[in-house]
Each structure stands twice: as C-alpha cells, then as structure tokens.
C-alpha cells in the first residue's frame, strides 16, 4: 500500500503536467481530484463527492456577489463610466508616467472599502479600466497584471470575505482584524506604485505619456466626468457603513446604481443590457468552474495528508521563531501557486495558527500576513484565480501568459509589503490599538 501523502504528491505532479499540456483548468483540477479521491476513499465516496461539491460550491449565498460585481463592471463599461473617468484622469495626469495604472491601483484600493471580494474587484476593474488603458496603448499584460493584483486589495481592506473566514477559523476578533487591514492594504497599494515606477523606468514603452498639453479650462471642465464612478463607489461605501446592506448585497446594490447611471446616459437599451448580462454570466461560469475544480483537488489533497506531512516536517526543524515564521510564509507562497485561497486557509490554519500564537505573534498580525500571502497566491501561476477572472473579462486580446508576466513587478511589491508588515508590526497593529 502506497502511503497517502505520496499519492497526494503524485496527484500534484499529474495536475501540473496536465495543466501545462494545455487542458482546461477547471476540468483538469476536477479530474485529478476525483482520481485521487477514487484511489484514497473508494468509489462510493468519490461519486458522492461529485454531486455534493457541485451543489455546495454553487448553492452558496456569499458567491452571488461575484456575478453582481461583474454586472456592475459591464453596466459601467457600456455606460462609459470608466471611459469618462479615465479620460479625465488622463487629462490631468497624462504627462505623469504610468498615470492610468497608478489611478487604477488607487481606484481599486478605494473600491476595496466597498467590496469584500478580491475576485469581484478584479473582474469589475477589468471592464472599467482595461479598455481605457488599451486605448492609450498601455502594455496589456502589465495593465491586466496591475488589475489582478490591485483587486486583491479588496481582501486586505475591510470589508473582506477572507477576513471573516480567517476570524471564524481562528476564533479571533473580526473587528480588530478589519481595522488592522486598512494600513497594510494602503501600504501595499503604495508599494505597487513604487515598483511600478521603477519597472517603467526600464520599460518606458509599456506606458506611453501624453505629449500634448491640455489647457486648464478643459481639465476643469472634464472633472464632472469622474462623478459617476465616484458616486457609484460612494453609494456602495455609504450603504455599507451606514448598515443599509451587507458586503454580499453590496454587489447587487452597486449593479443597480450603475444600471441607473447607464439608463440615464444611454436610455433603456435592451441589446446592451442583455450583452452585459450575457458577459457577466460568461465570466462567472468560467471562474466558478475553476473554483469548483479546485475544490475537488483540495479535498483530495486534504484526504491525502500531503500538506500535513510537509508542514510538520518543516516545523519540526530545530530553528528560532523567526525562521519558523519565514518557513510558514514560504509554505503559503508555494501553496498559493496551485491551490485556491479559501482551501489554503482551511487546510493550513488549524496547523499554523496555534504554532504562530505560541511563538508570541499577535493574532491580528498573523491574520493580515496570512491574508497578504494567500492573496499573492491568487495572482501566481498556474492557479491564479484573479488572473483568470481578468483574462475572462478581458477577452482574446491578451493571453494568460502575458498577464502572468505582467504580475511580476507587483509580486515583488507584495513581498516587500509583507516584509515591511512583519518588520514593523505596528503598521497592522497601530489602528486597532488606537481604536480600543
């Protein structure tokens, strides 16, 4: 009898092989996961898993936020909300290198205060910002990379679905965690901008600069066009913080507000509305089938005990606390490449959280660092759900490989931000302390 962790390792290898061979991602993860379950748990359990995973991963209230935010993005796209806003930004800051990218990063951070989902934010901004960056001849891979990474800010900045999962898994304070996330989220955005500027220094052709000077009068006149985008974000923000709706409902409310803008702007145009709807369900279907496939795979990995063995081995090495911490961070980075974010937390936190708290790290600090690492994972190949959602929404003009290449500067920035938060825990812990 082969030990089950080895079967887990073989499954992982097979997965990577088939993925790079070019089979559809969701299908491949489901197939390997089911094969693994078949070997480890027998035919009854495998067949049962088939029906239950499909049902329980789809009949799930919190996930409704995704299609709704995609809908928001599409209405905004067809209602020229993004176009207008970016036109204005370009008029004001177009002579500044990479201005549209920087605007996107900060807009995503702002949206992070209104959206609880990293995927939803990335999908929304692909529809909002990408067409504009395309029009201004920005490098598409880099632009998509920026959106995929900035989308993750929504998970660091409250509200955040991932924070809720962390808090429930670890029994720590959600309130404290939410406040702790604000500064690291903003810091990460700033790091993005920093590395982006450095990157553009070597690759100036990736972000063309506006070469005509625009008169101040026109600039001021154009300001009103940022209005709709700002108003949409403010509406969601206001509703959330006034307790009118929950982060999940925010998706639908945001979509409604955007639809109203769309109708005011263009009238009731059934064709465009239908197009928005069709595109939203297309992106949702594409991304969910991958999430579901990833669930099959992660259940197989869980049963195999592969991750337990690896982690326990690494943690059994006789080393000082900070090395343990770095080892754990490293494990998260590796797991992030091929596993879905929630699955990683569910599988690892019961092992790591007690170890880290025993070593004396603050719960909220652990939470923020883990969230940052898990969110790096949603942008790294081969399984990077945020990249997939950007690709689904972007269409045929850009390939997955280009986007994964475009991730690079932001990946570095993310690591830098994590290092900063670990070295200066006050970045995370200052605000919660101030509030209590």
């Amino acid at each position: 009898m082969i030990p089950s962790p080895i079967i887990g390792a073989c499954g992982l290898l097979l997965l990577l092989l088939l993925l790079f061979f070019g089979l559809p991602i969701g299908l491949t993860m489901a197939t390997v996961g089911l094969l693994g379950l078949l070997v480890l748990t027998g035919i009854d359990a495998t067949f049962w898993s088939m029906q239950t995973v499909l049902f329980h991963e789809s009949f799930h209230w919190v996930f409704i936020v995704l299609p709704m935010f995609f809908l928001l993005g599409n209405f905004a796209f067809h209602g020229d909300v993004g176009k207008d806003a970016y036109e204005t930004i370009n008029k004001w800051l177009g002579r500044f290198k990479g201005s549209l990218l920087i605007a996107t990063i900060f807009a995503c951070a702002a949206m992070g205060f209104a959206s609880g989902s990293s995927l939803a934010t990335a999908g929304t901004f692909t529809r909002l910002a990408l067409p504009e960056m395309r029009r201004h001849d920005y490098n598409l891979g880099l632009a998509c990379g920026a959106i995929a990474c900035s989308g993750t800010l929504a998970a660091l900045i409250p509200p955040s679905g991932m924070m809720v999962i962390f808090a429930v898994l670890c029994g720590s304070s959600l309130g404290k965690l939410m406040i702790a996330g604000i500064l690291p989220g903003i810091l990460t955005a700033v790091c993005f901008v920093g590395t982006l500027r450095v990157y553009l220094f070597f690759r100036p052709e990736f972000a063309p600069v506006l070469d005509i000077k625009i008169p101040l009068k026109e600039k001021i006149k154009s300001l009103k066009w940022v209005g709709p985008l700002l108003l949409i974000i403010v509406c969601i923000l206001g509703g959330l913080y006034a307790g009118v709706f929950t982060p999940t409902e925010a998706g639908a409310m945001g979509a409604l507000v955007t639809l109203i803008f769309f109708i005011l702007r263009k009238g009731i145009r059934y064709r465009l509305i239908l197009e928005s709807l069709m595109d939203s369900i297309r992106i949702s279907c594409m991304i969910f089938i991958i999430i579901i496939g990833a669930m099959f795979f992660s259940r197989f990995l869980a049963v195999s005990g592969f991750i337990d063995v690896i982690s326990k081995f690494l943690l059994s090495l006789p080393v000082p606390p900070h090395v343990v911490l770095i080892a754990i961070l490293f494990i998260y980075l590796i797991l992030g490449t091929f596993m879905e974010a929630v699955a990683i937390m569910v599988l690892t936190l019961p092992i790591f959280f007690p170890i880290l708290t025993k070593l004396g790290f603050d719960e909220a600090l652990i939470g923020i660092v883990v969230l940052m690492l898990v969110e790096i994972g949603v942008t790294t190949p081969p399984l990077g759900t945020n990249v997939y959602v950007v690709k689904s929404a972007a269409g045929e003009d850009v390939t997955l490989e280009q986007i994964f290449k475009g991730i690079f500067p932001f990946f570095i920035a993310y690591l830098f931000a994590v290092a900063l938060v670990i070295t200066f825990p006050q970045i995370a812990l200052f605000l919660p302390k101030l509030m209590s």
Partner: protein
Amino acid sequence: HANREAMAEQAEQIELRLATYGSPESGMVSEGIIWYADELAKRTKGNVKIKIFWGGSIAKIMELPRAVKSGLADIAPVVAVYHPELFPYVFGSSQSTMVLARADLGDWNVPYRRLMEEFPEVRNVCEKQNQKMLAFWDYDRMGVISRKPVRNFEEAKGVKIRNSGEYVPRIFKAAGFSPMSVPATEAYDAVSRGMVDAIHASADTANKYRWYEACKYFTRIPIYGTAMVYFMSINLDTWKKLPMSVQNEMLRLGNELTDIKMPSISRKVREDFERNFKKAGGTFFVWPEDEQKEWKAKVTKSSMDYYVKKMEAKNIPRLKEIVYRFAELMDYQWR
C-alpha cells in the same frame, strides 16, 4: 496463517477520518471531538487514531451526514437540525420543540434514550442513513444579544433580529420582533453597523463570532431550553469492520461524551461567555415571567403542529406520536 497475521497487524493500526467544520479553537463541538479522539487513542494504546479534517476541508457543515453515509468521512459531528428529512423525530424537530422544555444541559439524555427503547424508528434513524450513532448532545440555551436593551414585548416591537431557519423566525415574530435572515458570517458586520439590532445567539456562537464585541445586552429567554441538535456518528461499513474491543471502547467513550464531557464543556463555554461578556461591559437581563408564559402559549402548540404537518406531508411515519411522546417524557404540560 500469514493472512491472519496481516489482519492482526491491520487491526492494530486503525486510522479513521473525522470530518468537521470550524477549527480546533472554534467552540464546544471542536473541543468535544478533540477530547474523543485523544481519549480513544489513549485507551486503545495508540492503536486507533482519529485524524481530524478541520474547516470543512473534506466536507462542509451541511454535507456531514451524507459524507459519513458515503464513507468519504468515517466519523463526523452532525448538526442534525439542518436535516429534518434525514433525522426527523427529535433532532430534526429541535427547532420547533425548543420551546417545550426548560431543559438544561444533559437533561435530554435520559428521555431520548428512553425514546430509542420505545420506538424502533428512533433507534434506527442513523442505521437508515448507513451510520451508527456514537454520541449526542445539546445546544445551549439561546437568548437575544443586542445593541439596545430588549427586555420585554414592549421593547421587542420592531427590533430587527438576525436568526435562521424556518421555525425560529416564526417564534420571534410572535413576540413582535422583525426577523431577518443574514448568514452567520455576515452577522457581525450587520449588527455592528446597525443593519440588525439583535442576534438570536447561544453562548457558543456569541463567543465564536465575537458578537459580544458589538452588542452590550444579552436577554435570557428561558422559554427556550437547550435543544437536541448534535450527534456524532460513524459510517456503518467502517463500524462493522472494527474489532469488537474497539467498538466497545468507542461506544463507552461516546456515552461518556454524551453524559459527562459535553455538558461540562457547554457549561464551561457558558461561563466563559458570561465572563467575556461582563468584561466587555455587557449587561444580562431576563425576560419577565408572565410574558414568558404568554409568549410560550402563543407559539408552542402552533410551532409543533406546523412541524408535524410539514413532516407528515413528507410521509415520515409515526412522527406526531413520537414527538408528542418525547414532549411527555420531557415533562411538558399540555394545557
């Protein structure tokens, strides 16, 4: 001969998969199963190992009974109240029968065992789902945790309260509350921003989700006793393959969990909560006696009958008889 040796070796090292939700830190269910797993390993001298899969990593909370049925998990704690169609007699009816008794932790155990003796339907409820019950336990008394004082009918009028399921909202509506369904994971946000004013909570959930950080008042509503909600079961095929000695040990341990360990864990969780809540500046209230009676009169019979009617429509045999008998065993006084 070699074969028998191999079997003896296999019998020596048994590993069972236990699927659960939550994490080691997340409350009484986790504490109970950890105790069970550790104790079983200890008493079988390490021969039987239970490997716990946390956080729904192999099956989510709603999937657990069927995960055991299919054999994906060998053992799981089941929140039976979510599956009235599978476990209809007492576990499934818990939501409607909560109002029956002033039962406290562990008070249900003797009557429930009695019911199992009297009715084969109750006895075989798990076998029918290809599993064997190892232990069962109850959910602690529930109350209202709120941002503003909610001490009586007058103050309850129009108070937006978060609860879930089909029966509990009906019960709260009868007292003047406005029930809202918000998922447990969003309840913290909802109550701290004032989207709802109150949450229907037990000590365990209030602790786990830290609702006491946002709510400063807790009103005990003693028309609610504890409720039979959980059991732990093992896949029947797995069970039959276990050596008799291990089976006996598991059953003995299960009874200990049911009768001693779980009530004491729940009591400790209750005390923890009371301490935490007071430390966070919270105040406890009790719903007035006469209003309790009035409320109870309004909802008990109708809630039970609603359940019975619904389950009878689902062709569950002898349901009314069994549920009413249980009420009797719990000393409920029909008026």
